């Protein structure tokens, strides 16, 4: 995204560490996540992959308490998230999800400034909205538009800007680019990774696109039946030896890449 100076976040800042300490959640008799233990170092970009129903979204939402675990704790920089009021906690964490959820009766600027309005009852200054639009590579003139006047990709850029408006150190992304076309998805993914680095964020992203995880994340968690069955760097996953679930997921983009290469060589 744009290369102008990042909004008022100090250069040295690093996103927080996140720790899952035996987190479990069940719905009726079905176990969604099962005693998950894992640590995320400050400033890491973690991608959670796995088949549908493996518990990856549920795990993500225990961090900002959209889902309350039955047992275990989630800590951000050592502090239990359960110690804070849910709405106060969520205001300090950026959240981007597949359905975007821009409020249709508010302009782009009002959507971006919603967090500020909640916390301080004040609108976000025009200049700050402009900076955030720069950051997600949207024209500043979009500030006065309504969400319905924007394409899906543009809407999700606003979604990212809204999540960043409160200057969070931690970003939670639930299949953020899943509903976008492949070209837009690729561009947004790449631009977001650059932002993650520049703003020094900690990012947890749930995705069903293994290629996206391999290309943008520092670490990849593979989930199956509510547990993390593999926790590895992208290169390690591609090299293999991380278990059958990881193998199956990596096999897809690998096979696609091989076939595309073969086609090109065949011409």
């Amino acid at each position: 995204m744009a290369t102008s100076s990042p909004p008022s976040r100090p250069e040295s800042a690093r996103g927080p560490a996140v720790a899952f300490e035996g987190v479990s959640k069940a719905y009726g008799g079905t176990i969604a996540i099962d005693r998950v233990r894992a640590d995320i170092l400050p400033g890491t970009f973690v991608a959670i992959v796995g088949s549908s129903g493996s518990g990856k979204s549920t795990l993500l939402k225990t961090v900002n308490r959209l889902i309350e675990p039955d047992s275990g704790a989630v800590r951000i920089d050592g502090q239990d998230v359960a110690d804070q009021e849910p709405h106060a906690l969520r205001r300090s964490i950026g959240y981007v999800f597949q359905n975007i959820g821009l409020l249709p009766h508010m302009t782009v600027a009002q959507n971006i400034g919603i967090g500020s309005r909640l916390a301080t009852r004040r609108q976000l200054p025009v200049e700050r909205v402009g900076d955030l639009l720069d950051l997600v590579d949207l024209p500043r003139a979009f500030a006065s538009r309504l969400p319905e006047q924007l394409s899906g990709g543009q809407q999700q850029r606003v979604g990212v800007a809204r999540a960043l408006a409160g200057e969070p150190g931690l970003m939670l992304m639930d299949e953020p680019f899943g509903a976008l076309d492949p070209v837009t998805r690729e561009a947004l993914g790449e631009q977001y990774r650059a932002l993650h680095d520049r703003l020094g964020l900690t990012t947890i992203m749930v995705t069903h696109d293994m290629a996206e995880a391999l290309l943008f994340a520092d670490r990849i968690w593979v989930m199956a039946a509510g547990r993390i069955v593999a926790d590895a760097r992208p290169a390690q996953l591609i090299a293999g030896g991380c278990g059958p679930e990881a193998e199956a997921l990596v096999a897809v983009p690998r096979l696609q890449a091989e076939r595309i290469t073969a086609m090109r060589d065949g011409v």
Partner: protein
Amino acid sequence: MTIDWPRLIDLLAQHVQLSFAALGLALLIALPLAIWSVRNRTVASITLGFASLVQTIPALALLALFFPLLLALSTLFGDAISPLGFLPSLLALTLYALLPILRNAVTGLRSVEPAMVEAADGVGMTSLQKLWLVEAPLASTTIMAGVRTAAVWTIGAATLSTTVGQPSLGDLIFAGLQTQNWSLVLEGCLAAAGLAIAVDLLLGLIESGIAHRRHARIWGAGVALALGLALALWPSPQSDKPVVTIGAKRFSEQYILARLIGRRLEAAGYDVRYREGLGSAVVYRALASDEVQVYVDYAGTIWTNEMQRQDPEPRAAMIAEIARWAKAQHGVQLVGPLGFENTYAFAVRPDDATRLNLKSLDDVVRVAPDFVFGTDVEFLERPEWQMVQKAYPLRFKGRRAFEPTFMYRALSLGEADIISAFSSDGRIAANGFVILKDPKGAVPSYDAILLASRSAAADPRLIAALEPLVGAIPVEKMRQANYRVDRDANKQSPADSAAWLDTAISTKTKGKNR
């Protein structure tokens, strides 16, 4: 016909006050209930179920049902609660307006997309902020649609509040129906419809303003509505004359007598208001609570309905007993009998009377199995009918209830074979109907009696203005006056007929005095 503009505007203002108050109260109740219902399924099924149940009760019945309820409450809490007029109308209309508002608000709030709720939670809204910033704005067009429906219903149903003694545009409609003055009915209907359409349009503007985020539109329509309400609440110019409210039940004779009393009181320097179209049970209550100061009732009605007596009594004794009872119970003064009787009189067509040799109710017992009995809407529920049945074993082929006007027509058209007519009605003689004798004296005496409320009784000048009417109206004159209003051709308004009657009885009394 000419339109009585001051009266129309006064009724319109009362109509606006009542329907706006009911709508406002319904909003205050329904919106919080809707929010609660969306968060709790059990509450939703209870509130929506109750609101739907209320809707199945006809508006007229709902209004009437509040009368005994509030009457009971008023005996507990005293005069603060009036079982008549504004309060029962407000409560009934509010209940009626609940369903459309509640149902639309619940539907609107439930249909807010989950993504919006997730976004609202995700950015850290408290549940109150979520309601105010997300759910309410997104549901607002659906909610407004419900408010519009409720507004139109309420304005329409408010016409029925006339029956419990609350002035509204229904006064015109009921008076017009009873006297078959169709232009008066039309006047009331058009005014109510015009009001409903205007309010609906303004609410529609607010709705579209919300949908398209046009704040000017919302404010403009809101200000117009507020202005309309302010005009309706604007106090009518206070007259420096004392004001007397005259009551009337729902038939021509009552409208005429109310106007006759009004003429006399105006001549005596009083300012007169009319509360017309009141139900039989309602009007005496209104007098007892001093909301109405003067009206004409009938001895037998007070005797059976108010005093719960069924024992026959000679006329003079009955009137004396009523006077004593009314004074003791409610401070009501019986000014005196007007000089004519309006009793239930059983009437048949002249050809039947001759062919079947019908002279008295005893003769009817014989032919009853072949006869259809036509009555006014309340007769079969009245104690008089019990008393008649006790005296004469009447088993009719069928029974049909009519508004009084249509009852006479039904007899002449053969839709009914015998009717419970009113003896002072001009249409009996005009149609040549034969009145049957009541040899067993089952029907009590129905002398028209002039009643004055506690406050009116304390005003000697007012009583003095009324006293010349005592004993002054012979039944023939009353029948003629009634017929002037009830006849099909060349109808007169009750006011015109009252003017005629006033002259007719004045010249007669003067002649006597000379």
